[in-house]
């Protein structure tokens, strides 16, 4: 369906005062679409107006009791203090932990350096765990879930899709760091053995 240029002039709606092709009538839409118009009134939608005060949130405190800190919890310096409740999933550790703590202590969220340091810490964290995984006897693999390429129609599913072009880059993105590290290791060993 197209809101075609109309009224016999050939001039599209954008160039004149009114839409030349009105939308279907509400009766027609109600008949075709289940529930059409049940939320028609903008003043009666759950998130309108924006600053509507909820009657009861379930909270029975003015300020929540504080969760105990088991280690000095890193926090954004845009906060006045560590929030009363927080996640304890993966405490900072190792070199990546040093970078994370520095990023939180030194830079606010408004500084790109804060986020780039955290991304750098993520990569260091990944490398630290990779080394540890080799030692543990359960080494990480470069990518997971690849079996589904064969069981779930990897080629068939991508046929004719424009995003297949950049999927070709995924192996490069995933394997690139491994190849670089392997290359560096080989060069290093060769240099040592030549001495």
């Amino acid at each position, binding site marked *: 369906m197209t809101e075609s*240029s109309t009224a016999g002039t050939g001039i599209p*709606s*954008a*160039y004149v005062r009114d*839409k*030349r*092709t*009105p939308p279907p009538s509400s009766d027609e839409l109600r008949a*075709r*679409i*289940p*529930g059409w*118009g049940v939320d028609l009134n903008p003043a009666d939608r*759950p*998130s309108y107006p*924006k600053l*509507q*005060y*909820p009657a009861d*949130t*379930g*909270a029975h*405190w*003015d300020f*929540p*009791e504080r969760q105990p800190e088991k280690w000095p919890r*890193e*926090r*954004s310096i845009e906060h006045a203090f*560590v*929030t*009363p*409740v*927080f*996640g*304890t*999933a993966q405490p900072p550790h190792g070199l*990546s932990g040093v970078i994370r703590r520095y990023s939180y202590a030194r830079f606010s969220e408004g500084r*790109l350096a804060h*986020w*780039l340091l955290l*991304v750098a810490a*993520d990569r260091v*964290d990944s490398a630290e*765990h990779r080394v540890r995984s080799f030692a543990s006897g359960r080494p990480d693999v*470069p*990518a*997971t*879930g690849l079996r*589904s*390429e064969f069981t*779930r*129609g990897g080629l068939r*599913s991508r046929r*004719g*899709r424009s*995003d297949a072009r*950049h999927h070709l*880059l995924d192996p490069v993105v*995933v394997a690139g760091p491994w190849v670089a590290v392997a290359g560096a290791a080989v060069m290093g060993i060769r240099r040592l053995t030549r001495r």
Partner: protein
Amino acid sequence: MRAMVYRGPYKIRVEEKPMPALEHPNDAIVRVTLAAICGSDLHLYHGMMPDTRIGHTFGHEFIGVVEQIGSSVQNLQVGDRVMVPFNIFCGSCWFCARGLFSNCHNVNPNATAVGGIYGYSHTTGGYDGGQAEFVRVPFADVGPVRIPDWMHDEDAVLLTDAAATGYFGAQLGEIVEGDTVTVLGAGPVGLIAAQSAWLMGAGRVIVVDHLQERLEKARTMAYAETLNYDEYDDVVVELKKRTDYLGADVVIEAVGAEADGNLTQQITGPKLKLQGGSATALNWAIDGVRKGGTVSVVGAYGPIPNAVKFGDALNKGLTLRMNQTPVKRQWPRMFEHVRNGYLTPRDMITHRFPLEQIPEAYHVFSSKLDGCIKPLVVPGAG
């Protein structure tokens, strides 16, 4: 317990982890019975969200049974079947008091710009998520709700994020009767946004994607016109042609930081990480909406900057509205719509994976294999 664990970009596996513990008097521990993988989990999976630590368990869409409660919990009991909003929120801070549950200030020490989210890196508070057998649920008196007896579990799990976000996205569009609404992305959020646009009185709904099975779902589930951008040299021009050169009154951006459709954005964003992501859909929204129109953004973006055409938004006089969804605020009305059959979240589910097969589930969903639109994860199955 068994849990999905992040091991680095493109690498996840299932491991034994310690059981979560009650760490605050208003915590609960929930045994997860059903979880889902969200499109935004893929940003974590691809290593795009800063402070995603090795060992993190993802998952912010889940339902389950209350296993344990803290000493101050009044509204839940052990054994209750609950659905848990993806937001972690206190219910009492300046923002929660105004209904902005997704912007809670008392749950995320790592950042002030975003509230708390389960399993979504330390940038959103450092909470492990629900793609596991058990999960810690803070503020148990505030977030979780008992699942109504009549509600299907698969609808309940989708109402914890994807469906609520689609409905919220349509509200942000400030749709008025007769509006032409374009929805970018026919994924789980976009499909519900398209259904919701009709409820708010849209006169036309056009859904844009490039995956045939998703466009077909947009036609059958959401009664929408569809546009496959792979078939056009320039999708914005096609959108203008279809709207008599006006542009849509409202565009809902339901894609987020890894949008396809522009190879340069894909390579500089998701692949090389030279920017926060690929802002292709957001740019199409800005260019595809009419002057003076509204762009609603519910696709997920992280804190690192993106190449966005802000000048076009200024010069067109657009209203840009966006937020993470305050999920629980949507529920009473959405429950009615689901019960009446106006919103049909579980129609979008295409795959169900046992937790032990979650590496395959992520790869299938990420690469859009096998017609995957929405995968669920079932702990304890298979």
